[in-house]
């Protein structure tokens, strides 16, 4: 463990996984302490336990902690388990259009019930056309009447207007009316803040966001109290889907942005630890491997719809390729030759079933033991295993070699699928299985980097003080100047970054995407800008 230098401040990060909650105490890139606590049903207790273990294991000066952040599964769990969800009112502004497909169409019945949705759905006159015209004038009286009807029955309200990502006006006006009637105790989510064009998916995302407001508030409040009780006075941050963080104050309004928190944090941790901004991250677990492609430090986004709790959303998540290869993957043999890799894995039973622990099955892990790459004890498996080399020695060398070749080819093929350039790119290997796969002779990559502390990469990833944000606009290039349109969208994205906790002067553009409208005359296109900025002014 390295000594903490006096000048640098400290950051605490947590990564909540299915089994373990990892925690780290960082001084810059130095890991002062790391820990694994069992993830608890309420999630929060596990985090607090990890925090206590961290504080116990180090003499760090608490007053120098300037950031506590976490990648969390609070909201995902609540939606999947239909637990503690808000009672949600839903106002769609789009009539007379859109009525053939009302809100909540296609939702699982139990989830609809859990948010008391069906009783509180209104499709009212309003919304915009793509070019900014009203479909019809906004029916303010109907909005007021709907709100009076829902008063006392809902704790959270979702407002969704047709083409609101382009023109927010109708949603804004509806929100003002709702606020006046429903008061401050009912939270309001506007769809234009949640996602982009494609109303049904955006509507679903907005309703889901509205349904986990209470869960996120509760989580943030109890963590804040826990942190304060331990004498730490600092800001709290939460990892969002692209791997950047947002302030907890912002996250309580946008909990849906934390759905892919975990895998995103791992990718960012890998980037941070390795110092590599462009390449592939290969996260190798016990049963599967996730490959992500990183561009300028962030995972490339997937634009395929993401299903959460049985509901289709258009929340942006990282593009991950999952393959069935991990430390525990079983190597199948036939007539003394390797015939297949998996897809089955011994998973958690590695120490009982794998050959190098005296078990009956040959796994990817055993290959590493056989060829001598694995010698050190691995605390990532949380076990004091003693390798039983006798059993491994009985495996013919040809089988070991064939197995290794197959693992190498599988990794090479997966990496190749994610690459969008023929050039060699660096690969960062992280995760519990990173040490057991061959790291030589894999084509398509310039080098393999295995950063220190790779097994808590996710927790470390949460401590990177970078805020991410985006904005979208639709322009007609026959009328609007292209550069001006893009500049306007950039300013909007910067506003959003500032809102989620960034210092404006540090905000820079990550990428600009232009998508033309199909089947439409003219030169209309959608512009989407992603930006990042720092939480701190400079020198961090």
């Amino acid at each position, binding site marked *: 463990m390295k000594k903490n230098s006096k000048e640098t401040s400290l950051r605490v990060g947590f990564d909540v996984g299915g089994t373990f909650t990892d925690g780290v105490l960082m001084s810059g890139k130095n890991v002062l302490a790391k820990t694994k606590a069992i993830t608890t049903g309420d999630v929060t207790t596990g985090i607090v336990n990890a925090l206590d273990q961290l504080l116990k294991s180090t003499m760090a000066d608490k007053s120098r902690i300037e950031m506590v952040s976490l990648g969390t599964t609070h909201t995902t769990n609540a939606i999947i388990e239909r637990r503690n969800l808000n009672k949600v009112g839903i106002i769609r502004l*789009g*009539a*007379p*259009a*859109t*009525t*053939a*497909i009302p809100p909540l*169409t*296609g939702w699982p019945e139990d989830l609809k019930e859990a948010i008391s949705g069906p009783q509180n759905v209104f499709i009212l006159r309003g*919304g915009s*056309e*793509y*070019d900014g*015209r009203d*479909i*019809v004038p906004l029916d303010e009286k109907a909005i007021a009447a709907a709100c009076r009807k829902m008063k006392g029955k809902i704790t959270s309200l979702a407002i969704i207007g*047709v*083409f609101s990502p382009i023109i927010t006006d109708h949603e804004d006006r509806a929100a003002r009316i709702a606020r006046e009637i429903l008061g401050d105790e009912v939270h309001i989510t506007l769809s234009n803040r949640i996602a982009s*064009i*494609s*109303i*049904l*998916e955006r509507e679903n995302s907005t309703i889901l966001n509205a349904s986990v407001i209470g869960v996120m508030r509760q989580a943030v409040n109890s963590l804040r109290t826990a942190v304060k009780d331990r004498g730490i006075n600092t800001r709290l941050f939460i990892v969002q889907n692209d791997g950047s963080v947002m302030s907890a104050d912002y996250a309580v309004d946008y909990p849906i942005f934390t759905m892919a928190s975990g895998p995103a944090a791992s990718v960012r941790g890998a980037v941070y630890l390795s110092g590599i901004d462009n390449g592939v991250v290969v996260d190798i677990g016990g049963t599967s491997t996730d490959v992500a*492609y990183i561009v300028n430090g962030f995972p*490339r986004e997937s*634009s395929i719809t993401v299903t959460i709790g049985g509901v*289709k959303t258009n929340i942006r998540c990282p*593009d991950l390729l999952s393959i069935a290869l991990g430390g525990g993957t079983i190597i199948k043999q036939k007539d003394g030759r390797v015939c297949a890799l998996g897809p089955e894995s011994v998973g958690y039973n590695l120490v009982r079933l794998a050959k190098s622990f005296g078990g009956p099955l040959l796994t990817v892990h055993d290959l590493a033991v056989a060829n001598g790459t694995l010698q050190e004890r691995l605390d990532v498996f949380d076990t004091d295993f003693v390798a039983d080399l006798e059993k491994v020695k009985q495996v013919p060398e040809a089988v070991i070699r064939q197995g290794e070749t197959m693992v190498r080819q599988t990794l090479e*093929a997966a990496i*190749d*699928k*994610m*690459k*969008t*350039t*023929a050039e060699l790119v660096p690969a960062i290997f992280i995760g519990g299985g990173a040490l057991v796969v061959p790291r030589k002779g894999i084509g398509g990559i310039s080098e393999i980097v295995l950063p220190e502390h790779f097994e808590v990469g996710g927790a470390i990833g949460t401590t990177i003080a970078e805020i991410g944000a985006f904005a979208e606009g639709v322009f007609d*290039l*026959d009328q609007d100047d292209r550069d001006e349109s893009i500049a306007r969208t950039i300013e909007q994205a910067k506003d959003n970054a500032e809102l989620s906790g960034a210092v404006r002067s540090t905000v820079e553009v990550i990428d600009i995407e*232009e998508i*033309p*409208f*199909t*089947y*439409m*005359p*003219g*030169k*209309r296109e*959608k512009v989407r800008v992603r930006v990042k900025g720092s939480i701190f002014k400079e020198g961090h």
Partner: protein
Amino acid sequence: MAVWDVIRQWKLQEKDYQVIDHQAIREITLGASILATGGGGDPEIGLLWTYKVLDEGKPIVMVDPMKVPDDVLVASMACLGAALVLTEKPPSEGVLNRAIVKLETYLGAKLQATIPIECGGVNSPVAYAAAGELGVPVIDVDGMNRAFPELQMTSWVTHGIHASPTVSADDRGNVTVIDTGSDDLLAETICRQVAMAYGGISWIATYPMYGKAVKDTSILYSQSIAWAVGKAVWEAREKHLNPVDQVIKSLRNERSVEGFKVFKGKIVDIHREFGSETTKGFTLGRITMEGFDSDKGRTAMLDFQNEWLNLVVDGRVRCMPPDLIAILDSETGEPIRTDIMKYGYRGTILLIPAHERMRTAKGIQIFGPRHFGYDLDYQPVEKLNKDVERRGA
């Protein structure tokens, strides 16, 4: 009128029709999206609409085209306009009905069935939803057995049937009658402008024709073909089989044609450009794919105008319109569409011969390579891929 009255009136037996349930429309739409050649739009809205019609207890029935009486009036219902606008502004209840009623008034006769216009994520299920709402059957045909960007690009037009009159409706209650006689290109131009004035999309009732014309000019059993393709992919997902191979097999069984699995790779470059004809404004461009696995080292280039048009692999033309190009996700079989594709998408390119009724001399003239600006004589995909056939699927 209920659909069962029509079935009874036409004296249909049980083998002459099929009842469409949730799973059936799911499979038909999936198959249609694959045959849509990269276009056709997002299936979600049409599907949800059809589910709603079914959930309201309105039956949807698909009938054998050869059992349809010669003298009954039918028409096609579709969404015409910008796919992106539709994803943001789903239809209102009754919008198609208004178009239908107006068309019936104009013609002075009642419609007794719907005919899907194309295979596409939007317009395939829309024809079923409309039929269910109206209480009439869907006929197992369409006008393309693929998707095309323009109204007049159908086997109906190439066999002498016209898109006029067309009624175009919007959600506010506006209706426009377009009657251009035999000038189908003009009908397309006016319809497109009307859609723009409405706010980007329109709901049309078009191609009114009699049962006899349906039999003589449609792509017969187009719905069954889409259904077989969709079923094959569904089954492949459940049994973890290769979806592309299953699609090829289903086409062999259903249409007795061979599909060609010509390339497996990922998108490494997308070049989008706006059409020179700003009044048309289609999504034009080209993508480059780099091969992986057995295609490592090869390069594929595809041009698109809403749909995929043309495929060139390592400098050699492999497919021209109207033959079909599908890029399918190698694991799920989900088609990769031109409006949602991105860098890094991974897929297998499958080529499918166009239906015989799309390959007539007039068809090649209206939607062959020269119509789309290629200085190429049409050559069927079977001829362009003789070597691939030997590689076998």
